[in-house]
């Protein structure tokens, strides 16, 4: 069946796809698609390009130096809507992963008796100083999860605290030095902060939103429009890699070994492997096997580019004033998320695809998000930066 797509008029327009990735555990499916040679099966060659910053990744995408990227879902929508940059039409080809990020607080806070969100809020009220929390990119997933989590505990992230963007590799150092109180980032950086004793894991991202969308496979709309067949091959190859990752512990172990090398994540294999398996240690004596660890496939459920997932990031951009005006959330999401192309790739890789464009999620505060009424959803948050017309 695959041959029908990679030969003749459906042949990939471009056979070498330069794909950017950040040194994070959840780059696994993109990296393994290349390492396992799954790209070859679909008539393309994925050329991996390790990046140093999300801003650099974005610029290279926009300049065409890289064709596709393992990228923060929220960042793509920030660019689409022109937050901090000229608005540029972007595309989400698929969701790469779910879960597996975390919020870490400093050891110093643990010594003051902080163990969870409630005790953190109490400590902040009691203390005279302003707490600082870091994330990895202003419009990114970690910022949105951090703000959501703080606000769910009655803490206004902008008014009651100070927020900063800090490169993941510098998080633990700043935490240990007392320059900040906590951070939200991807793995292996939270595991490393816990392992080196600078912090403890206070919440996983799946605690905030079970099965939340994570990194997306992104590109510019112009690239996708010019190379639809190549993009379809890319998605099919990465879908196969995700299926392989979720298939067994042995496969994830093998992936941890590959990822730990300097060419990819460049980190201790153990820091990658444990949480890849869902084995958590919060650093305060609690150890558990997480029922919702990072997922790369989940029968394709983790990969489907649900419009409601994309819309959630936009509602949070609006909530925090990053997005200055109301947008037609559903229209923007259906323009950016290439559901049709994804479905073709899913057929190619033999992966089931959802028939629904929206899904229902319940977040940590009990709020339901199903994509049906973004305006009411935004105005339902007592802590927000934006006053909505008619709300």
């Amino acid at each position: 069946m695959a041959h029908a797509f990679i030969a003749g008029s459906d042949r990939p327009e471009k056979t070498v796809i330069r794909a950017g990735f950040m040194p994070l555990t959840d780059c696994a499916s993109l990296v393994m698609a290349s390492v396992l040679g799954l790209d070859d099966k679909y008539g393309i060659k994925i050329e991996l390009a390790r990046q140093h910053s999300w801003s650099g990744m974005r610029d290279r995408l926009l300049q065409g130096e890289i064709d596709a990227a393992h990228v923060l879902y929220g960042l793509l929508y920030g660019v689409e809507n022109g937050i901090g940059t000229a608005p540029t039409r972007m595309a989400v080809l698929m969701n790469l992963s779910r879960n597996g990020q975390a919020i870490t607080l400093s050891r110093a806070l643990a010594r003051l008796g902080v163990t969870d969100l409630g005790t953190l809020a109490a400590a902040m009220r009691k203390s005279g100083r302003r707490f600082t929390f870091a994330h990895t990119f202003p419009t990114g997933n970690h910022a949105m999860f951090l703000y959501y989590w703080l606000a769910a505990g009655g803490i206004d992230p902008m008014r009651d605290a100070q927020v900063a963007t800090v490169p993941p590799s510098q998080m633990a150092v700043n935490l240990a030095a007392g320059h900040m109180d906590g951070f939200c980032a991807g793995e292996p950086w939270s595991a490393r902060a816990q392992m080196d004793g600078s912090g403890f894991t206070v919440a996983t991202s799946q605690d905030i939103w079970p099965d939340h969308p994570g990194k997306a496979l992104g590109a510019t709309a112009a690239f996708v429009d010019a190379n639809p067949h190549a993009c379809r091959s890319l998605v099919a190859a990465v879908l196969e890699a995700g299926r392989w990752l979720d298939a067994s512990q042995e496969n994830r172990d093998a992936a941890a070994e590959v990822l730990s090398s300097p060419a990819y994540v460049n980190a201790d294999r153990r820091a990658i492997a444990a949480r890849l398996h869902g084995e958590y240690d919060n650093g305060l004596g609690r150890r558990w096997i997480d029922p919702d660890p990072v997922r790369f496939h989940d029968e394709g459920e983790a990969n489907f580019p649900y419009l409601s997932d994309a819309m959630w990031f936009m509602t949070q951009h609006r909530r925090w004033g990053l997005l200055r005006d109301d947008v037609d959330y559903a229209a923007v999401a259906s323009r950016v998320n290439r559901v049709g192309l994804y479905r073709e790739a899913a057929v190619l890789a033999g992966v089931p695809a959802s028939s629904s464009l929206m899904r229902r999620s319940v977040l940590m505060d009990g709020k339901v998000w199903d994509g049906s009424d973004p305006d009411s959803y935004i105005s339902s948050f007592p802590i927000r930066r934006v006053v909505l017309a008619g709300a």
Partner: protein
Amino acid sequence: MKPPSKVQRTLRIVVVNTASSDAADEATLAAQARRNTALRIGLLESGYDIVAMLPADIFLPERIAQIQPDMIIIDSESDARDVLEHIVIATRDEPRPIVLFTDDQTPSSMDAAIEAGVSAYIVDGLQAERVKPVLDVAMKRFHREQKLLDELSDTRRQLADRKLIERAKGVLMARNRLTEDEAYQRLRTMAMNKKLKLAEVAQRILDVEDLLG
């Protein structure tokens, strides 16, 4: 509010040193140091002064807020790019050019990018001869933006002045039963006698009106 001084200011340039991340080996650090030196020399030879060289740490946003640079130069490979992104978004009403350096970009497309108002440009390496043309274009844009900002604040002030004058005229007309023309003449005479601007006289009248109710 007075608009910022129209006296030609010099471009305030800050160079951000790439973070000494734990992964960086000595050779990488040495290469960075060489590139920084080359950049500094290039800027000085081109007649640009560097206000500060800042380390890319958690205090960077604070220092930049204090220094208020017109231009920030950072290595495109630096992971501190995202820290600057935070500043770009936090201060997005006052666009600030940021120059980045990497390997392949022709001057013409760079020119076009800058003309289009992109706040990040990419040039070849950190060679001194490549630094000057970028800065020249950036400088042009900087002056144009300054001019636009000045014009904008002029326009805003004129609008605000006109509103003040209209309101003060209204007060004079009501209190002293004057026609609009007479009220305006009264304002003008007062302004000339007291050597004040029309808007300032109008403001005083409105202040008094506030006080007396």
